[in-house]
């Protein structure tokens, strides 16, 4: 009854950090934190490897270990870095760094075979994950190494999504600035164009394009960029409208700068910031879109790996008999999307594009 008061919600609607910033940090938290973290990590690491018990017991032990380790590390972090330390944020950042690094370094990493079936005739098919074996995350039904496929899949996924964001930023930013600067007919035509793009549900648009375009990385990136385009155009247009009235733009005009110079030198740098922050947020949406498309068989085609088409391999009975076929790429996809969402949410709170328009 008494919980409603007119105090602003301090944390908003975002995910709660594990620690409540209300309570001041105290140093003595570090020791129990360490005490929790070490056995937690040990339990999580050893459970799958050595515990001689049925699957669900191992899983429970693993989960309990993770929870313990998380709680311990969170306390440790708060003890060492202060009360506002957000372990989840750093874990997500670390995960993204690992994924990106692995994707970049994929060709030089000592990985198993990821696409050539001919080379894996001798390899075990559908081998379950086993951390210290030749195939740490197991193999698929052709004996291809899942870890290698995951990492090469990340390469494709990130390349396509980030490429799409880049295309969206360049094209959308350009069109948006033009529409916002010239107004009138340019603006109207742009408006109808963006509305038309928005008038087709995103996945339907992708599928329709999938019938037309050859499914290679470049075309998929172009198709995905169409999802990001409308928002990019609108955002760039809105920012241009605001900034075009500011003194520094008027000053540049008064000094005789050409319209292209005004747009390129004065407006573009100001429009870029909100676009970039939106790009960060939409990367996770595009990763999911690419995965969905590949899952439906319209995106990246096997044997080239993508998280989406790897998950599709587990469709039907394979999933039931060999859950790792779905779970390995599935968990990877989940973690990556989660990390992007969490960091995007934090970034959005700190640098809200709406505030950039002040």
């Amino acid at each position, binding site marked *: *009854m008494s*919980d*409603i*008061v*007119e*105090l*602003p*919600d*301090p*944390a*908003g*609607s*975002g*995910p*709660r950090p594990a620690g409540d910033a209300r309570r001041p940090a105290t140093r003595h938290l570090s020791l129990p934190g360490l005490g929790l973290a070490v056995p937690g990590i040990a339990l999580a690491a050893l459970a799958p490897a050595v515990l001689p018990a049925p699957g669900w017991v191992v899983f429970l032990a693993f989960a309990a270990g993770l929870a313990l380790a998380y709680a311990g590390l969170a306390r440790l972090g708060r003890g060492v870095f202060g009360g506002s330390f957000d372990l989840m944020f750093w874990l997500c950042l670390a995960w993204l760094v690992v994924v990106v690094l692995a994707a970049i370094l994929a060709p030089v990493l000592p990985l198993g075979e990821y696409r050539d079936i001919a080379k894996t005739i001798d390899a075990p098919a559908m081998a379950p994950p086993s951390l210290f074996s030749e195939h740490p995350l197991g193999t698929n039904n052709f004996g291809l190494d899942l870890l290698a496929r995951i990492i090469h899949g990340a390469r494709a996924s990130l390349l396509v999504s980030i490429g799409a964001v880049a295309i969206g930023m360049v094209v959308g930013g350009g069109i948006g600035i033009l529409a916002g600067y010239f107004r009138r007919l340019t603006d109207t035509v742009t408006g*109808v*164009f963006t*509305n*038309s793009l*928005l*008038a*087709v*549900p*995103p*996945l*339907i648009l992708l*599928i*329709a394009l*999938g*019938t*037309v*375009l*050859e499914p290679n990385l470049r075309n998929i990136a172009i198709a995905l960029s169409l999802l990001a385009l409308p928002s990019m155009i609108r955002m760039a247009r809105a920012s241009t409208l605001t900034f075009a009235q500011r003194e520094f733009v008027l000053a540049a005009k008064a000094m005789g700068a050409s319209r292209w110079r005004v747009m390129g030198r004065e407006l573009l740098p100001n429009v870029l910031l909100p676009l970039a922050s939106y790009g960060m947020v939409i990367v*996770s949406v595009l990763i*999911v879109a690419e*995965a*969905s498309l590949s*899952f*439906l*068989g*319209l995106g990246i085609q096997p044997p080239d790996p993508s998280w*989406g088409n790897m*998950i599709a391999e*587990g*469709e039907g009975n394979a*999933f*039931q008999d060999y*859950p790792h076929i*779905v779970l390995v790429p*599935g968990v990877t*996809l*989940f973690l990556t*999307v*989660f990390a992007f*969402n*969490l960091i995007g949410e934090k970034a959005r709170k700190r640098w809200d594009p709406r505030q950039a328009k002040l």
Partner: protein
Amino acid sequence: MAWSVLKRLAEIAAVLFVVSVGTFALVDLTPGDPAITVLGEGHTAEEYAALRDEMGLNDPFLVRYGSWLGSALHGDLGTSLIPPNSDVTERIAAALPVSAEVAVLGLAMALVVSIPLAMWSAYHADGRVDRIVGAGTFGILSVPSFLAGLLIIMVFSNQLGWFPRAEWVRLGESLGDNLHHAFLPALTIALAETAMFTRILRGDLITTLQEDFILAARAKGMSPVRVLFSDALRPSSFSLITLLGISLGRLIGSTVIVEYLFALPGMGTLIIGSADKGDFPMVQGAVLVVALIYVLANALIDLSYGYLDPRIRRAHV
């Protein structure tokens, strides 16, 4: 009022025109030759040319678009290229109810769960339940719907065997069987929607609950349940409706994926199947219908504000 409706209608017409041109232009962009798609490989060049002529593929773009649009406006979307060369409109008419049922059912499930959940979370903001709901919904939003669907099939269909997979019983045949088959697909759709609705509605309710009129209602001695439903939910329902509009695109997307996963004979399966085989009249027709529904639904949502919010209603009259 009349003027704003007219303006809105003109906008809708312009957008639909561009979409129809876009979908029609898909054919010209298609790399393969439709004649080969129809006849298959191994025919003479003359045969292909004759068919192309017969299909009107040699006419200029505008002529072809005009005749296609003309018949489309009469409800004739052409015939499928793939045997048995069925009528596109008929196929869509058969598929649409399936998609609509699953989507509406999923949406209803999402609303039924998310409204009380959001209310509880907002009312006890920062409490234990709120934190768990906050973390849970955030996690669910990071699970793509095809992955969620696979997991749901794995647990409820394969392991527990409670619900069937890959069969469909039409609504007309048996309501019970129909719902039994529609439950898991609807659940898959509802998952992400529930998470989204709960989060947005919670944030909105927290703002509403800080309003003076909430305090005033409490000061009158109204019960918390009454305050929440009668005073807090109605102002918040506007953002729920906006949200409905925003989530419509995602809803259609997840319906497509769910149909594919559960092999339901809906629009999604129709579009994906036709896209796979290069059956462009079918894709054109289906995409056009989906876009039409999408645009009209969004327009309807815009208009519904006026009827829900007395302040806007007055401004329009």
